[in-house]
């Protein structure tokens, strides 16, 4: 598929060109690439927020033509409801599904505890730090329990320690639920620790450069980072990303 944006001055921008990708049921897939290479655009296409300019996105053989609740999105910019408390935000998905009050409250509590926000249930998003808000979005999507998890740099705002804990939790959830997960990151380490396959993307226009299976044994633990195997893999991925970075006058920047 291809996605072309019409920009303000009547020009068009090719965000993604001729991308073809099969996401396998139950796998953990990482989209890795520099800022601006179309990772977020790709995820928005998966969620049905955008429609491709050509080609199509299929979920279990059916084309996605509108916003798809079966593909739950963790937004890069949180998108929390400011007028709802942490609990209200996390309960939103179950509430929309018609789950009764006491059940959804229990569900919400479980995920709030899981993202280590116990005690902040009645806080409003504006009262939380960026990292805490990011964890609320994670809890919110997990409570909604979609078939596919789409995550746009969900750990970008977290400090290194919290990030490691959250990565562990996410792997645990993935192993337990077998949910297909598409995860955006610009961290090679994160991609190597989390994913079954890594999709390396290149910019201008956004394309898939390679798809690397991740041979590291799973279930994984952060300690794999110490193995020589890991170092070799990291060097290999880095080489691929580096050539792209040098070819384009783009620096690694979080966000966008």
């Amino acid at each position: 598929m291809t996605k072309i944006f019409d920009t303000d001055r009547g020009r068009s921008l090719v965000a993604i060109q001729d991308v073809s990708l099969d996401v396998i049921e139950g796998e953990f897939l990482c989209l890795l690439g520099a800022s601006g290479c179309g990772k977020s655009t790709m995820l928005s296409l998966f969620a049905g927020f955008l429609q491709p300019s050509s080609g199509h996105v299929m979920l279990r053989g059916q084309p996605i033509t509108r916003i798809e609740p079966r593909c739950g999105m963790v937004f890069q910019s949180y998108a929390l409801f400011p007028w709802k408390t942490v609990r209200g935000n996390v309960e939103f998905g179950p509430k929309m599904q018609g789950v009764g009050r006491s059940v959804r409250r229990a569900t919400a509590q479980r995920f709030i505890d899981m993202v280590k926000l116990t005690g902040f249930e009645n806080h409003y998003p504006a009262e939380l730090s960026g990292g805490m808000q990011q964890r609320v979005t994670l809890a919110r999507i997990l409570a909604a329990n979609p078939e596919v998890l789409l995550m746009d740099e969900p750990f970008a705002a977290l400090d290194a320690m919290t990030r490691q804990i959250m990565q562990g939790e996410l792997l645990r959830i993935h192993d337990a639920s077998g949910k297909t997960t598409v995860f955006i990151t610009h961290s090679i380490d994160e991609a190597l620790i989390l994913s079954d396959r890594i999709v390396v993307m290149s910019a201008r226009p956004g394309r898939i450069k390679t798809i690397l299976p991740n041979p590291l044994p799973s279930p994984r633990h952060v300690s794999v980072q110490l193995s020589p195997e890991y170092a070799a893999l990291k060097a290999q991925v880095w080489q691929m990303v580096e050539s792209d970075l040098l070819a384009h006058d783009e620096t690694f920047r979080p966000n966008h």
Partner: protein
Amino acid sequence: MSEAVLVAAVSPAKARNWRFRHVLLALNVAAVAAVSLLWWASTRFGWVAPIFLPAPGDVLHAARLTLANGDLLTDIAVSARRVFLGFVLAAVVAVPLGIVMGVWRPAKAIVDPFVSLLRPLPSITWIPLTILWLGIGEAQKVAIVFMGSWIYILLYTVESTRRVDPLLLRAARNLGATDFAIMREVILPGALPGIITGLKVTLAISWSCVLTAEMIAAQSGLGALIWQAKDWGNLPLVLVGMLCISLTVLVADWLMRLIERALLPWERNRSN
């Protein structure tokens, strides 16, 4: 031994803040006292003739008289009632209409031309027509308040409804929300702060509407009080009326802010 480069200590900064706030309060009081003193002196020493500016003592005396016979409180109550009725009526019409216009473009297209035509008209221009239609009773005063208020409430409501973050609409849909749920859970609470701001701004406008209407044709109300006092040459009473208007609008504004705090708990202590 190395020295501390950065020191965080609570008490001095806090104390300074506390002292500063008291200095500001003292300045408030001092400014009012100075102007009052100037007023008193200018009448006491004949710098200004009493027919242009009455002495503070005369104003206090007039206030005591009209308070004692109950006229003042009656006039305040009469004006407040007219404002309340006209304002609530305007809100009841304009808020739902504005929300519909905000989410459904055809409705906006239908109403917009009339808004453009009516908006430039000050409420005072409605006085001839409303008197013709409704006489000079209560209904006419309420109508003037209504005509002067509803468009502002409408404009604020349309704007705040349209400004609801589209990302939140996406997020809600992604979490499985239906159209109805989007309306109730996202658009209404998202637009509410802007709507309430609009109501606050409009309430002051509603007050000026009622005063104009009362000055032109009314037997009661604060506007009538001022106008009649002028006709009798009772300048101290004019000033009493003006002060009362200021105080009443301040109280109304304060009530609005209480309501706002109650309705928007998430805006109370925003950190960013």
